[in-house]
């Protein structure tokens, strides 16, 4: 009897999956279409937000608290991975080869410049802190894999925390300036957003690279 169930399992699983998919799809196609009320509210408030890109405005102004929590989740994940104490071998550098070193020479600075551009242009065009942080993480990762960069524990910890720190300090400083938590003053909202985004970019790059490396910096056990 168990053999029979085991052989029927793929068929049963497939049938179950198709049934579940049909159920979800039916429910989904029944939901009313987006009437645009939320979009209109967001786009009408856009000129007051300090940036021109609606997604950046939503992320860093209208729903800035969610982004604050997201930066905190990233940092928390890093702490959790470090707490696992993986004891990975110290050297994971790639062997030196002409292909890799020329790749590094060309794409390393290019990635840094692209990250800076994405961060700056996120105010008006598609871009922003997360995209810039991810591209910068790619550049840092290339340098790490080449064995050319071994930041100490202090640097990594500060770089990972600066995003959350700046965001929190800004959030706490706002009530003194305007009276509301995370409510930017109207004239300088763009500047505050850029400040938070810059710190967040550095943090995201540091955290994503450190998540890849997974070995706590400054650990001396082999």
């Amino acid at each position, binding site marked *: 009897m168990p053999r029979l169930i085991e052989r029927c399992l793929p068929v049963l699983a497939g049938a179950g999956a198709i049934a579940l*998919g049909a159920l979800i799809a039916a429910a989904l196609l029944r939901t009313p279409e*987006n009437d645009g009320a939320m979009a209109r509210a967001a786009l009408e408030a856009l000129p007051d937000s300090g940036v021109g890109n609606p*997604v950046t405005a939503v992320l860093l102004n209208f729903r800035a608290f969610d982004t604050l929590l997201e930066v905190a989740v990233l940092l928390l994940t890093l702490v959790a991975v470090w707490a*696992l104490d*993986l004891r990975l071998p110290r050297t994971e550098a790639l062997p030196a080869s002409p292909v890799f070193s020329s790749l590094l020479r060309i794409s390393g600075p290019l990635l840094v410049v692209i990250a800076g551009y994405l961060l700056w242009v996120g105010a008006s065009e598609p871009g922003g802190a997360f995209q810039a942080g991810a591209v910068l993480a790619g550049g840092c990762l290339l340098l790490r894999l080449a064995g050319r960069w071994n930041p100490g524990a202090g640097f990594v910890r500060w770089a990972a925390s600066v995003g959350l720190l700046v965001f929190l300090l800004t959030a706490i400083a706002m009530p003194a300036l305007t009276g509301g938590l995370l409510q930017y003053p109207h004239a300088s909202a763009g500047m505050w957003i850029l400040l938070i985004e810059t710190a967040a970019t550095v943090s995201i790059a540091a955290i994503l690279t450190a998540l890849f490396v997974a070995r706590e910096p400054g650990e001396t056990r082999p």
Partner: protein
Amino acid sequence: MTVTDFYALVGVALFVMGLSALILRKRDLQRILGLNIMGTGVFMVLVTSALGQGQPADPVPHAMVLTGIVVAVSATAFALALSLARERHK
């Protein structure tokens, strides 16, 4: 069928495929892949909800999906580290 409906159905199919992989596959890595594809399916449904009839794109679901992608990669990193630790302690 509109673009919205088509990609929403693709999203549902991806979600169901990821869920099946999460339940049926045995190795940790395959389950983590399934989890990621589930997440991608959900994001697709969210983004298609941002499109209405002839209106400018709703930025709020885009922001939610952006946050979701970053949280998904950090969850994936932690899940992979957990599976490495599990292998080590076996």
